[in-house]
């Protein structure tokens, strides 16, 4: 296409060690004001902070560690360097200011889009507008230690400040650190814990995982688990589409990853895509036929599609592998009820209650069944149990539930729901 394309258009990236030497050389040579951007993980940043003073003993090096979001960097720097000789100022932790201000949805972060023009993180706007004051007041080499995504922020949202850089350097993460960090994240990985994280903490963790996934030294065998965790995190943030994409990637690496198929099914279920849900559970079951949770959830999806016979067969499978699985018994009861099999319905609920006597939903469902049959006595007895076990929850349900319409005028029923 272009006749002038030459090998100058091909990349010639430095070897990792060369990049490090390039950075040192630049910092040694720079006098007065200067801006340097170093792309690295927080762990590598800490190593660099320790190492640099030994590498350049002739310069006074200071470290500004930010631990929370800031709107203004000029003031903290001015106070920090007051009455102090500083040649090189290393700044770590500017990320916190970005998590806080750009309230972008997770989907955008995962796609790396910077199209949101409705707001600018204050700190970036501040730097962009105040670059002259930094230049004129601080004869210092500023070294920003940042994650890859933060550098993208600078490029897009503080372009004038970034334009004054003397260089961008990528400090590669060593294979050991990649290994260490990946293990830590996988070890910490826990759906319940994810649920408790704040929005910002979730963003932070998502970015951590995304960074690790793009690391050169990330061995393929870690990738599926990291992608799985990423999917789970996204799913706790109700970002189901993005979560599904993550699971899909994990499954590309490891097609027999039954947990990923299973969680993918849950995410699809949240989106109401039941046919796909069933297909996803089928895959999970292909690789783990005794996966009782998958059989159970598959049954629920079939219920949602009105395919009750198949649902019952699915619950039967779940119960084959876990006979005391009370939810499956209860779900089975529900499906049987839909088919009008009264006796079997009651038997199924009874099984659920055998294994979990305080299972108030099952008591309640039984009460509904009896009410529909016109069996007032049994209906009231079961409802009483449900109400006792659930405090007020079942009482509230019963007030409006049409299943009880046939006994609604009954005095005892009236008394029960008061």
């Amino acid at each position, binding site marked *: *296409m*272009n*006749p*002038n*394309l030459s090998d*100058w*258009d*091909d*990349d*010639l*990236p*430095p070897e990792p060690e*060369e990049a490090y030497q*390039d950075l040192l*050389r*630049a910092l*040694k*040579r*720079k*006098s*007065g*004001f*200067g*801006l340097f951007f170093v792309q690295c993980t927080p762990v590598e940043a800490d190593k660099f902070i320790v190492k640099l003073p030994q590498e350049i003993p002739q310069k006074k090096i200071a470290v500004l560690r930010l631990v929370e979001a800031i*709107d*203004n960097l000029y003031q903290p720097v001015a106070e920090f360097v007051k009455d102090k000789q500083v040649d090189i100022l290393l700044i770590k932790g500017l990320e916190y200011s970005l998590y806080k201000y750009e309230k972008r949805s997770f989907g955008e972060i995962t*796609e790396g*889009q*910077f*199209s949101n*023009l*409705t*707001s*600018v993180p*204050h700190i*970036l*706007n*501040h730097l*962009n*507008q*105040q*670059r*002259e*004051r930094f*230049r004129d007041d601080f004869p210092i080499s500023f070294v920003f230690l940042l994650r890859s995504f933060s*550098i*993208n922020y600078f*490029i*897009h*949202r*503080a*372009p*004038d400040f970034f*334009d*004054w*850089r*003397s*260089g*961008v*350097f990528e400090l590669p993460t060593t294979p050991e650190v990649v290994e260490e960090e990946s293990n830590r994240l996988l070890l910490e990985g826990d759906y319940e814990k994810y649920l408790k994280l704040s929005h910002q903490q979730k963003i932070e963790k998502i970015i951590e995982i995304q960074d690790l996934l793009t690391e050169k030294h990330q061995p393929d065998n870690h990738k599926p688990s990291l992608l799985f965790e990423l999917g789970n995190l996204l799913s706790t943030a109700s970002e189901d589409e993005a979560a599904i994409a993550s699971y899909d990637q994990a499954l590309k690496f490891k097609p027999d990853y039954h947990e990923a198929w299973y969680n993918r099914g849950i995410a699809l279920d949240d989106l109401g895509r039941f046919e796909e849900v069933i297909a996803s559970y089928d895959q999970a079951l292909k690789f783990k036929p005794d996966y009782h949770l998958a059989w159970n959830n598959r049954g629920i999806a079939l219920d949602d599609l009105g395919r009750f016979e198949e649902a019952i067969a699915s619950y039967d499978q779940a119960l084959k592998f876990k006979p005391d699985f009370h939810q499956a018994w209860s779900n089975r009861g529900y499906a049987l009820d839909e088919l009008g099999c009264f006796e079997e319905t009651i038997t199924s609920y009874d099984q659920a209650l055998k294994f979990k006597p305080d299972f108030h939903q099952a008591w309640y469902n039984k009460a509904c069944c009896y009410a529909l049959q016109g069996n007032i006595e049994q209906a009231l007895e079961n409802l009483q149990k449900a109400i006792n076990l659930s405090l007020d929850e079942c009482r509230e349900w019963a007030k409006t539930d049409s299943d009880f319409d046939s006994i609604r005028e009954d005095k005892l029923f009236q008394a029960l729901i008061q």
Partner: protein
Amino acid sequence: MVNSTDLLANLYNAFNPFEPLPAGDPKYVDCQDVRGDADILQELGNRMQRSNTNTCQLYSGHKGAGKSTELLRLKNYLENRQFCVVYFAADEEDIDSEDAQYTDILLACTRRLLKDLKEIASPRPILDWLESRWEDLKDLALTPIEFEGMEVEVQLAQFAKLTANLRAVPELRQKIRQKIDPHTVTLIQVLNEFLVDAKQHLPKGKTQLAVIVDNLDRMVLVKNGDGRTNYEEVFLDRSEQLQALDCHLIYTVPISMVYSTRATDLRDIYGDPQILPMIMVNTLKGDIYQPGLNKVKEVINKRVRQIAPELSLEKEIFDSPQTLDRLCLMSGGHVRNLLLLTQDAIGRTDELPVSEKAVRRAITQARDTYRRTVENHQWCLLAEVSCSKRIINDDLYRSLMYNRCLLEYRYLDDGEMQRWYDIHPLIQGIPEFKEAVAKLS
């Protein structure tokens, strides 16, 4: 003989990308004829000189192309021609909000004009205006005392306090604007009284007054809920007020505004904005344009000469003429890109000469920045422009002009001005771009 470590450090520091050259600096290279004969002195300066009435002109260009350097030259040029010039960079001390608005600009102008002209004109009208607003404003200036009781100097300082608070205290920002907004018309009136007074007492030899507001193009583009941008609000909605000051005016305007769908509106109001184009290093057909390339080399040469006048540029500083040529071509004729690439290449050099490898590494790093700049949907736009060499005034191209993925060039063809556009040469080698080009054919 300077030892090599110092020499390399000095060379490295000679290519700082953050200092506009003061007027008359020996490092300045006049690139007028390879920027399509765009000369700020002629285009903006002469119009101001010849006009019988006040002028209000817009100046724009890619960031880092040398706008501030050119405006400082213009200031000097005008000062030598009986102009008294107040030049200020709007953002340095006054404007620091993510949503800079017209009011902020007006207050900044007021403060700077008071500061620079109060020796020759009486600030009384402005102070009276402030006094009449004082009940509303004193809380916002965070000054409890009564205005009347203050010394004139202290009264003057209140304006600075307002702008300082506007900048530094986000909670006060909206309030200050709300209080000032309904009174901008009267503020402009008193400001003009002050300017008239100033014009009658200009220093000896001065007959005209001009204000140059630089760096307004630094406002980060912010879209409001209704889809309008802060640029439109300032430069279109408030155009009457922007033009109302009783002196010659030059405002810098973001280049993406000049290339937006509102470009025509802008032209109707202010006339053609002057845009500083790139130094043309390639021709429209894609051949190397030697005069332009030579100018770019001269930019490097002049800086190197100051440090190492005795070394040969194409043998001892760079390892070959080809290495230097490629470095220059990869800048796209954009001065700050050139400085960055050169500084980075020197930084990646242990011993002179700077090798092809060091330059290629600097190019690789800079290319990565461009790769990260372009959003996924923009690659095909870039591919199209690389073929057609044209753009239309569409918002699609706006951000690409703003972030220099697309560059503007100009040349004179038989005395007629031709404009054309191209992708930044660093983009050429990016895989995503190559794919987009392949899809075109």
